[in-house]
């Protein structure tokens, strides 16, 4: 493939001299991924083999230091960005700002950090822009290959595992990718469904909404069916039908009701190797600010509007405090039918609107207070002194 040629993943490297392994002043050894078994087509998927042919003699000194990550600061919240993803009863919300920064310069105020992989999966990326673009394309390729080979879509957790395994050989190099996979798993069999009536109702409603489904399903199964697994849109409609019945339960109950086979998912994968599944994930230098808003407002039973508002608010607060986040906010909503994108919104407007709202609120509070004091005066309980203090 063209990408493969450009990156030279399968080139034999006999003519390239091996890297020197002189540790730099930090004892940090530069690793390349080309040292493994080059005969295998997926050599970057395997854990690194012991390099017995090259008699390296890394000392204990270098081996302890080589596991230090490239970032040496005490706590560096690297990746100048704010991205977030969370699940709730009606799907997944993925939101991100649009500022791409390079040290103190805004390289691009309108970059796109949320990239769709397929109809039911989007990935929020942060870290180095080039690395994210590359790895997003590699992941897309691998997932498509999996789908063609196995005739079913790889689950979100599987995709996270795949990406994590592919990134592992690059650990210790300067590859910097922190991706949040947000999507809907849709592999459910007929016998987990409950009410046929609900399914029929939802089917009808969805058929009217066919534009979204059409976009989603073209890139999906492509008409290939397995006997035991339903067509993608039937499955997704059925899970939609299940949603109202489970929205009142505890989160843990819900996730186990889904049986781990279907439902909204959020997974975080980092080039360090960290891989986490959760309900709320936020990444980037603005993530602490976003977490504060999300932790406060998140409930499993939120409506779509509440969830969208929460995500917007979280990104907005983060962009306010964090210098490396800002400009606009992108928002994607993923349900069983696929992803839907909300229009990009300029947060500058939101900031001014909030100022106006605050001014109005202050005026109203002032009015109320005056009215209250007016009442107290009339009743003759307050004296002149308290009016002045109020």
């Amino acid at each position, binding site marked *: 493939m063209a990408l493969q040629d450009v990156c030279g993943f399968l080139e034999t490297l006999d003519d390239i001299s091996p890297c020197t392994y002189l540790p730099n002043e930090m004892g940090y050894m530069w690793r390349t991924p080309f*040292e493994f078994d080059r005969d295998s087509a997926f050599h970057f998927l395997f854990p*690194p083999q*012991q390099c017995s042919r090259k008699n390296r003699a890394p000392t204990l000194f270098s081996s302890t230091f*080589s596991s230090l990550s490239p970032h040496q600061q005490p706590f560096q919240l690297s990746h100048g960005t704010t991205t977030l993803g969370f699940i709730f009863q009606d799907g997944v919300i993925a939101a991100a700002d649009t500022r791409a920064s390079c040290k103190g310069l805004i390289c691009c105020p309108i970059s796109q950090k949320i990239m769709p992989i397929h109809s039911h999966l989007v990935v929020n990326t942060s870290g180095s822009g080039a690395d994210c673009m590359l790895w997003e394309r590699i992941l897309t390729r691998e997932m498509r290959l999996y789908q063609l080979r196995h005739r079913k879509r790889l689950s979100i957790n599987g995709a996270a595992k795949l990406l994590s395994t592919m990134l592992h050989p690059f*650990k210790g190099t300067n590859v910097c990718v922190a991706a949040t996979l947000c999507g809907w798993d849709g592999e459910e069999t007929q016998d987990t469904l409950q009410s046929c009536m609900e399914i029929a109702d939802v089917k009808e409603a969805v058929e009217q909404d066919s534009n979204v489904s059409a976009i989603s399903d073209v890139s999906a199964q492509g008409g290939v069916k397995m006997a035991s697994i339903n067509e993608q849109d039937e499955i997704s409609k059925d899970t939609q039908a299940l949603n109202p019945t489970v929205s009142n339960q505890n989160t843990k109950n819900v996730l186990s009701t889904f049986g781990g086979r279907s439902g909204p998912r959020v997974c975080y994968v*980092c080039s360090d190797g960290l891989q986490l599944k*959760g309900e709320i994930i936020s990444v980037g230098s603005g993530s602490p600010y976003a977490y504060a808003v999300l932790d406060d407002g998140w409930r499993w039973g939120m409506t779509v509007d509440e969830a969208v508002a929460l995500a917007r608010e979280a990104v907005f607060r983060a962009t306010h405090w964090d210098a490396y986040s800002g400009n606009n906010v992108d928002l994607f909503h993923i349900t069983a039918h696929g992803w839907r994108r909300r229009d990009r919104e300029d947060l500058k407007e939101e900031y001014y609107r909030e100022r106006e709202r605050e001014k109005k609120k202050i005026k109203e509070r002032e009015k109320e207070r005056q009215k209250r004091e007016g009442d107290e005066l009339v009743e003759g309980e307050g004296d002149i002194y308290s009016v002045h203090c109020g």
Partner: protein
Amino acid sequence: MEYLIGIQGPDFVLVAADNVAASSIIQMKHDYDKMFKLSEKILLLCVGEAGDTVQFAEYIQKNVQLYKMRNGYELSPAAAANFTRKNLADYLRSRTPYHVNLLLAGYDEADGPGLYYMDYLSALAKAPFAAHGYGAFLTLSILDRYYRPDLTREEAVDLLKKCLEELNKRFILNLPSFTVRLIDKDGIHDMEKLPVGSK
């Protein structure tokens, strides 16, 4: 930052690990499980550098399973511990060492319960009690004072609670909850998650 502890009794091993998955200063997950089930009666507790823990632990886990598939019987805890140590040692002087600290706890029909302490330099020691992490500095002396080889299960859980209370009191980081498991001749039992401060 992370904490592991194991206490061996006459016919059981009690192990606990904290539930925090952190990335720089943020707790990204509060219910993260750091224990990996190698077989019906062996648990591997693994902490250390972010990606290395899962990669290494899953590698060991799959290899132990593979042994069982090939040979029809499971590796004993001692064998599994030595296998793990050998892998750590092999990778140590390679260009990709795994920076992980481990506790391996298991029950063998013939030898009884065993707790093995391993660190990132591939040291291996069979110990009656062990701990990893900064919390270990605070709790090892408690274990020294109150540990006896003939602890009952309840006494072991009380000892564990004492350790966790000390952590809550003196450790600078907040570790709100711990996964606790017990291994005996009947296998691995999940016990109640211990929030720190419970009596």
